[in-house]
């Protein structure tokens, strides 16, 4: 944590500049409303935007989304692109939970049909998807060869193992498999952490949420994504579990040494990085892509168990009709082509708590999303709403095709727990028709709705800035928490 907290300069109603000062190689750019900026006053996250701007080879501004909050190294909600020949890759720009992401399922049921057996459903989901401290699967412990195939094959390997359908893969970022994964770069310790965690949720802000579409904001795009008013959906939020956390830990140490050797001054040690063409970057790249594939496979297995659980309660027809709307990573670094200064350039885009948002016509999108743009999934909190958006041309022009990833925290976990101490958050939510099942009380208290900003305001900011188009608002009916 170095340097003073920067002051923002207003560009327009949705854009703010962090002026270039000191060791910054470029300026910062924050997308937010005036009220959201007021909430950021004195916040460490703005210093983190400036810190990222100090890294070598950064192209364009250091970007922050309206759900920005204090992270470690990069701010949560941060985006930065680096030139492959002069730039760096930083595990701190990806985070410990590599390919933490969100997956949305559409269910062929209306909310009215769901309600009568909702309590039975959420109890069964809580049993089917291990969650909480120490969550592991007793029915699946991968051997090294099996783990290698998951690390190389991602969601496609999970489908080949019987956990899903071929058509699921079309609705996953990168088809659910990053081809540059190198399982040989994943350490023994990372393997030990992940071996029995495939198909588990974890803890913290991870969840499986049963919801319904309470407002279809764009009927044409909603239809393209398979969403209809009143329809039940399921949102899954988790990542690469202990395997990914260990990959980050392993490579941070080598990156710290690499940064020293290459004379890279780090404003924060968690921004440890290495030149993109070097051996340390190659090692991390192979391991990070492998961990990302593990995360895609993790969400695929959870999808399988969600489908089966719905089938047990609502029948085989419902199970068969559950479709994958989209699956998107929000902690990742990827090589992508973007137009900068009128020239198409290949860049390494870091998204730390930010969602890829390709606009209509983007060649990397599956054919079914070419006209609509990529679905962008924005979870809120468990009391209010989540949103589905579609990538818009503004994102391609200004944010390396990136958008917000959630509501963003407003209260620290400690403050939230204090605020919840004399309340029963679970009972309060049940009183509002939202059933909650959790491994313990702590995460429910720490994840209370008031701990988060209002996701509707975050979505209004990205829509106002032209980064994405709102498609649907989803209301929670039941939540499984870690």
């Amino acid at each position, binding site marked *: 944590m170095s340097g003073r907290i920067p002051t923002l300069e207003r560009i327009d109603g949705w854009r703010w500049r962090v002026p270039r000062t000191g060791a910054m190689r470029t300026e910062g750019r924050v997308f937010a409303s005036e009220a959201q900026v007021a909430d950021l006053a004195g916040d460490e996250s703005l210093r983190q935007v400036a810190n990222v701007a100090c890294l070598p080879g950064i192209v364009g501004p250091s970007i922050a989304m309206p759900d920005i909050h204090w992270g*470690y*190294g990069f701010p949560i909600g941060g985006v930065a692109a680096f030139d492959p020949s002069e730039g760096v890759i930083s595990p701190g720009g990806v985070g410990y939970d590599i390919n933490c992401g969100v997956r949305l399922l559409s269910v062929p049921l209306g909310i009215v049909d769901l309600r009568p057996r909702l309590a039975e459903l959420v109890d069964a989901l809580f049993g089917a998807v291990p969650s909480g401290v120490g969550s592991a699967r007793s029915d699946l412990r991968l051997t090294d060869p099996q783990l290698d195939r998951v690390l190389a094959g991602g969601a496609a390997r999970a489908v080949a193992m019987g956990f899903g359908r071929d058509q699921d893969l079309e609705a996953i970022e990168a088809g659910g498999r990053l081809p540059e994964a190198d399982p040989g770069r994943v350490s023994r310790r990372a393997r030990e952490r992940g071996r029995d965690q495939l198909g588990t949720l974890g803890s913290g802000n991870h969840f499986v949420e049963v919801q319904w579409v309470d407002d279809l904001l764009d009927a044409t795009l909603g239809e393209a994504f398979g969403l209809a008013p009143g329809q039940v959906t399921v949102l899954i939020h988790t990542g690469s579990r202990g395997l990914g*956390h*260990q990959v980050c*830990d392993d490579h941070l140490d080598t990156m710290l040494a690499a940064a020293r050797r290459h004379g890279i001054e780090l404003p924060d040690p*968690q921004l440890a990085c290495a030149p993109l063409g070097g051996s340390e970057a190659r090692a991390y790249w192979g391991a990070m892509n492998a961990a990302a594939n593990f995360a895609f496979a993790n969400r695929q297995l959870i999808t399988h168990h969600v489908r089966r659980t719905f089938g047990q309660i609502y029948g085989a027809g419902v199970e068969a009709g559950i479709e994958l709307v989209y699956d998107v990573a929000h902690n990742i670094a990827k090589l992508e082509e973007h137009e900068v200064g009128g020239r198409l350039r290949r860049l390494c885009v870091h998204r730390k708590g930010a969602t890829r948002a390709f606009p209509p016509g983007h060649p990397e999108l599956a054919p079914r999303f070419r006209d609509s743009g990529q679905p962008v999934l924005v979870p809120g909190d468990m009391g209010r709403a989540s949103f589905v958006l579609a990538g818009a041309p503004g994102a391609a022009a200004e944010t390396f095709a990136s958008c917000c990833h959630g509501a963003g925290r407003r209260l620290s*976990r400690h403050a939230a727990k204090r605020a919840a101490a004399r309340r029963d958050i679970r009972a309060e939510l049940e009183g509002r028709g939202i059933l909650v099942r959790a491994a*313990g009380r*702590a995460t429910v208290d*720490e994840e209370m709705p008031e701990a988060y900003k209002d996701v509707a305001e975050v979505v209004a900011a990205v829509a106002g800035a032209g980064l994405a188009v709102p498609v649907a608002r989803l209301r929670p009916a039941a939540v499984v928490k870690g």
Partner: protein
Amino acid sequence: MSLARKRYSEAESLAEPAVSHRLLAHTADLRAELEAADLPGLYVAAARLVREALVGESPVAAREERALPAQEGDEAERFFRFVRELVYLFDAEGFLPAAVRLGDPPRLAGERFDPARHVSERQIKAVTRHGYLFERTAAGGGREPGFRVELVFDL
């Protein structure tokens, strides 16, 4: 007789809150300050912090022992790696600490997580290098010399 009672002293045990930690503000993660009069006390305080984050005040018995990997670097780096090892041992083995003994290598006594006996509080993904502070504090203002550490955990 448990391992802790047999081989670990009271000061090495996490049972008595003789050393403390304090939670500091951080929007998303867990940020804490540890203070102790000596290094063994600091290591015990770290183990208490990690254990409380995972399972709250649930009792943890010293049923098994773990020898930690050889420690590298200066005392700040060795301490950081010790905390990192606590996180790893829980995630890979479900191991919860009950007592700490400094040495070469350091050793932990504890037991595996049992959902029937241990409360599920929150998972720790990692201890980060962001905001990591390790300092020896001088005597003054009625305070004894000792150690002060700040840590940020990703949850």
